[in-house]
């Protein structure tokens, strides 16, 4: 078990190096002065000179990469335009909002997808299964930003039930914790709904096929042969096996979750890292863009590692690696 974790940690290093390399290369796609990538070009000339030295900008590309890497390891991505603050500080401010959105969306998605997938698999090819399949396909085909607009149209504009954007109601004067929580929850409803509907399709299908796989195993036949209730067979024997691949799925879904969150944040003006990043794209605030790219990749890599560790803990075959004598 420990060996497994150590092995995974070691394999992280080339991965992170690769990520930093790709980010670095993107930055240098643009012709012109790379100083623009690291700070606002309108700063004082002494500042520019200091930057050149700090980031090795008059050195060959390879050397520049190492300077960049040296900074990246310490989460230093330069200084944001206009704001004149370190990029990492700006990102750190916005990150919790994004994580809240992503976390809630994923949790809700799982809460709905698991029962749907399990029931679909248990009654394969039944009317429920077919209905869920059709809805899944529909969900996968909806562009998330369009769904966001439609939901906004329905719930905010026409029905006036939910706020159309932002995270807080600015008119609330020093609200209590509960009032504040409800306020955030209301603001979160539409963004979360959008992300959930889009993600639901794929995850439901995944759960379904994972369950079908588990149900086709020999130990299910043996469990039925012992006269156990069908519901025990499904919910105890099959489900526990089917849930394991879900842990891996969490890791695999992270890139899409982030991507989805970025778009949803932009439409609903949710003050997260995604909205920051997209706004930075429009204002060509390069230090922030690169910071968001690197940081989200970093989080995804760490997330995958955590998922793998959880999987190793959950699967007794990996947790207890003892080899018995035959």
């Amino acid at each position: 078990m420990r060996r497994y974790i150590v092995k995974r940690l070691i394999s992280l290093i080339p991965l992170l190096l690769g990520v930093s390399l790709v980010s670095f290369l993107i930055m240098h796609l643009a012709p012109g002065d790379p100083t623009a990538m690291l700070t606002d070009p309108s700063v004082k000339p002494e500042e520019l000179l200091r930057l050149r030295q700090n980031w090795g900008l008059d050195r060959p590309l390879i050397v520049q990469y190492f300077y960049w890497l040296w900074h990246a390891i310490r989460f230093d991505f330069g200084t944001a335009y206009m704001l004149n603050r370190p990029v990492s500080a700006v990102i750190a401010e916005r990150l919790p909002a994004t994580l809240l959105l992503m976390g809630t969306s994923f949790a809700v998605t799982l809460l709905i997808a698991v029962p749907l997938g399990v029931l679909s698999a248990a009654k394969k090819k039944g009317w429920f299964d077919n209905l869920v399949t059709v809805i899944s396909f529909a969900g996968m085909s909806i562009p998330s930003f369009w769904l966001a607009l439609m939901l906004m149209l329905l719930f905010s504009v026409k029905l006036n039930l939910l706020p159309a954007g932002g995270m807080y109601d600015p008119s609330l004067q020093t609200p209590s914790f509960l009032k504040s929580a409800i306020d955030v929850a209301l603001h979160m409803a539409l963004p979360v709904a959008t992300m959930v509907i889009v993600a639901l399709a794929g995850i439901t299908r995944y759960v379904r096929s994972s369950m079908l796989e588990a149900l086709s195993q020999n130990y299910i036949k043996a469990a039925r042969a012992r006269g156990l209730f069908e519901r025990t067979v499904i919910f105890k024997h099959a489900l526990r096996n089917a849930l394991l691949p879900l842990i891996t799925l969490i890791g695999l879904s992270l890139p899409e979750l982030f991507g989805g969150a970025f778009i949803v944040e932009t439409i609903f003006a949710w003050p997260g890292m995604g909205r920051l990043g997209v706004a930075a794209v429009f204002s060509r605030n390069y230090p922030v863009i690169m910071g968001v790219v690197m940081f989200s990749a970093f989080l995804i890599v760490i997330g995958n590692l955590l998922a793998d560790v959880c999987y190793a803990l959950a699967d007794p075959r990996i947790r207890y690696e003892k080899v018995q004598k035959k």
Partner: protein
Amino acid sequence: MKKFKKNKLALFGAAILLFMALAAAFAPALSPYDPNELGNTALEAPSAAHLLGTDDYGRDIFSRILFGARVSLTIGFVAVSISVLIGSLLGALAGYYGGAADSVIMRSVDVMLAFPSIFLILAVQAVLSPNIYNVMIVIGLTSWMGVARLVRGEFLSVKERPFVEALRCLGSSDIRIIFKHILPNSFAPVTVAATLGMAGAILTESALSFLGMGVQPPYASWGNMLQDSQAYLRLAPWMALVPGLFIFMTVLSIYFVGEGIRGASDPKEN
């Protein structure tokens, strides 16, 4: 092929796609108006004169949809072709040669998968300047990973089979073995992956255009039509409904067709 024909949804999807493709191809002939022509009647609801209404500049939405179909379908197709090309090649090399090549290529897959691709593409578009061509290329360059893994898997399982050994003994060059003998085996799963990829590419392009980093005005893309519609959500909801519906129908049809192909090529499916 027969199994595909039996799948009603797949046929339905194929019909819709064919219809879309034809509409796109004959857009100039079919559109009642010039898609970029500014009209007199802005924000007009669907009517006899304008089948799907007009937008904030008075442009006919139906015509814009037709031309937008051209853009979206072309970008989807080209992007997926690029990704399949790159993915198949890299997957084949990794699977066939193994060893260092395999390690490097698979690591690259892992690295590319660590980025949220939308944002990566946005970042690239911010650095370059967005236009139709680099949208296609960048989407292609960020979606080859799935195909690569797929093809690599195929190669790994086929590589050890006796017929490959036999071919080598007969003096076939590696390139010949790869392209003529092993690669064709993965045709079916790659085609399924390609359909999924095309659906994804269309969704990605529309998201990019929606955000303003894809197809630039005045060219119509279903995505950037949705961007324009945002400000007029209350006044002219059809501006938002129509392009979105078309994206939805197109992508859904592609998924149905893909499922049909998968079902038809899977020997286990009864």
